[in-house]
């Protein structure tokens, strides 16, 4: 298989010290770091279907040893995540080698093999009281009035069991200490998590950062449509600032003061 050969080459030619991919353990695909010392393990390399934030593992490794050269199995979303991490100085692009996986369908590949490609099914109750996974933020805005929007989001948020899965799996969450655990912002030891502040804090921190990989929504045991929430957040960022995170290496607009004021404050509508 080409991918195996390419990964082996990276290790054998010392272009990387470690290669991050997946292998099967007890029937489960899990992330694994392959090394030159056990290069034969690469024959067991798994590349399909399952997804984990390998970039996050790369960040952890890089933090322990900034000189470490890391090879990484990269889907399109990983590429966006990497760009973002380069932008925010969490990874050094010079130390990263990527092997691109056939992922989302495009003009180059007719099929994809990402678990995310199948449309999700939303139950009838959820459709009636909560939010359809497949709804777009724009349609959602258009179809529901303000009161309805609030009650639907409240329905979704109140299911939260505060497992922090969304944050833990997020490839672009890199803060050492998280605002979601800040006692002044989110009351500790309370379930369900304080609504909506818990989710809005995370949404705000995702603005200009979320690269729409969907891992959070996959991970959420409470079936909260997080991907759609962060999509809206990113839409706002791209509408207001013309910035799409992960597109290329460019600072988020939240960190740019700019020399001229182009926006004007919205007038108060009574």
């Amino acid at each position, binding site marked *: 298989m080409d991918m195996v050969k390419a990964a082996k080459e990276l290790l054998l030619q010392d272009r990387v010290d470690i290669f991050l991919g997946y292998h099967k353990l007890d029937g489960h695909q899990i992330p694994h770091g392959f090394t030159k010392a056990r290069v034969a393990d690469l024959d067991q390399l798994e590349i399909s279907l399952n997804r984990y934030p390998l970039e996050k593992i790369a960040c952890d490794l890089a933090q322990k040893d900034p000189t470490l050269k890391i090879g990484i199995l990269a889907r399109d979303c990983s590429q966006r995540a990497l760009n973002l991490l380069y932008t925010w100085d969490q990874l050094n692009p010079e130390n990263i080698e990527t092997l691109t996986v056939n992922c989302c369908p495009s003009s180059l590949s007719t099929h994809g093999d990402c678990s995310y490609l199948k449309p999700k099914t939303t139950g009838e109750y959820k459709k009636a009281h909560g939010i359809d996974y497949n709804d777009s*933020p724009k349609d*959602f*805005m258009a179809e*529901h*009035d*303000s*009161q*309805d*929007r*609030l*009650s639907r*989001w*409240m329905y979704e948020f*109140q299911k939260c069991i505060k497992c922090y899965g969304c944050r833990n799996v997020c490839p672009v969450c890199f803060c050492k200490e998280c605002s979601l655990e800040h006692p002044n912002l989110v009351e500790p030891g309370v379930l*369900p998590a304080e*609504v*909506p502040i818990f989710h*809005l804090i995370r*949404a*705000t921190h995702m*603005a200009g950062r979320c690269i729409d990989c969907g891992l959070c929504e996959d991970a959420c045991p409470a079936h909260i449509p997080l991907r759609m*929430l962060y999509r*809206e*957040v990113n839409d*706002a*960022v791209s*509408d*207001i*600032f013309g910035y799409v995170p992960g597109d290329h290496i460019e600072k988020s*607009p*939240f960190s740019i*003061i700019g020399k001229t*004021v182009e*926006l*004007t*404050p*919205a007038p*108060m*509508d*009574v």
Partner: protein
Amino acid sequence: MTLKRIAFVQELLKFMGLEGRLHLEWISSAEAQKYVDVVTKFTEKIRNMGPNPLRAINEMKKAG
């Protein structure tokens, strides 16, 4: 910076169905009248909108 952040948060709140409760206005220390006008207008607007719906939800939650 403030302008950008507020514009964003206004969008987010609108998406959540909580629009109209955040407003940004630049008023210099020399513009007392403007300050009074804006604050009065905003207070009245909020009063007309009624109490924050989240308060009701959180109280319901506490009550079980």
